[in-house]
């Protein structure tokens, strides 16, 4: 079985390293992008669509909300699970992201355990993987 793949989209290299470490621990193969535009370009060249994307909100070129909207408009990318990972924590922002098509929302700062629990909620890791 080929491993599941996760895109980590954040303009902060430090945050990408944290997220990459967590998904790698969960046996995902990680693909990094520095903004939404770069992520869309990478997706265009991929024959197999990653199962998961962890997406920052505030990024140059194409922000996370625009990325989510574009992914949702593309039938080829329908199966991707989209998780916003951002400091944007006003309730109205969470509602906007969910309305645009994000499946889950993790507020920074997050613990590794919280991220794993969210992915478990989405059925991407077995429950109890954190214990």
């Amino acid at each position, binding site marked *: 079985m080929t491993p599941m793949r996760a895109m980590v989209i954040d303009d902060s290299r430090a945050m990408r390293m944290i997220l990459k470490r967590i998904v790698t621990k969960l046996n995902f193969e990680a693909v990094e992008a520095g903004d939404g535009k770069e992520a869309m370009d990478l997706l265009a060249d991929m024959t197999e669509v990653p199962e998961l994307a962890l997406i920052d909100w505030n990024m140059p070129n194409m922000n996370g909300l625009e990325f989510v909207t574009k992914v949702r408009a593309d039938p080829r990318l329908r199966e991707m699970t989209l998780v916003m990972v951002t400091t944007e924590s006003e*309730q109205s922002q969470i509602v906007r*992201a969910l309305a645009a098509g994000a499946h889950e929302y993790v*507020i920074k700062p997050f*613990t590794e355990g*919280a991220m794993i*629990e969210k992915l478990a909620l989405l059925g991407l890791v077995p*429950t109890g993987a954190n214990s």
Partner: protein
Amino acid sequence: MTLSQAEFTFVANLVRREASIVLAAGKEYLVEARLIPVARAVGAANVNDFIGDLQKRPNPAYQRKIIDALTTNETSFFRDREPFAALTDVVLPELIKSRASVRKLRFWSAASSSGQEAYSLAITLQETLPAGWSFEIVGTDISTAMVERAQKAEYSQVEVNRGLAATQLVQYFERAGAHWRIIPALRKNVSFKHMSLTAPFPPMQPFDVIFLRNVLIYFDVATKRQVLQNAAKILRPDGLLFLGAAETTIGIDDNYERVAAGRTSAYRTRTAAPAGAARRG
């Protein structure tokens, strides 16, 4: 480290006695970091003076401040998940049939601590019960500080990041400064009271479901048996008792039998009426 071992022990004992929370070894610096702002707020010169004064003259208000400072982020919403999944998938569909005439459910969250379990139950019921049904959730805890915290219903960002789906966060919470507070519409069905599980129980209306999780482990066998016997008296004959994953009634109180509940198990009293039997009341 400015806290002496004796001072740390005094604080740890206070928190265990008043809030039933055990401060793990190795967290001495964290305790110190959280007590410094408390000491400063009450005008003590430093944390040593603050604890020293408290050892000489107990001060309930200060003790409360210490407990509040040291007992955050200790539990999460939908802890262990399985019991909640069992409610949604198996238990509630059954109860919706058997309680069709009253259309009201009563749940007990025993040892409710800061209230996450009681509110997780409320969210589960809110999302599962058909229109026209109502529910009541009673949380009880031995710590009045914890009862007040649960009534306040405010949780930190770290606490709401865990266990809750994003849709639940936006639907059942509202921002309150740096915190998130359960909305009044959900809070109105949940109440919290002070109660010791090891003392004789106060009079309570019977419950359809009791969550008594991860608390029996702290008691000796005789106390466990007494708590289970008291709980049986306020559990409806066909109601269910949920214990922690590492707990059981087996070998302690044989009036209960274990029954499957989704991917986990729960307990029913052996006098349980067969399904479909007429109920009074």
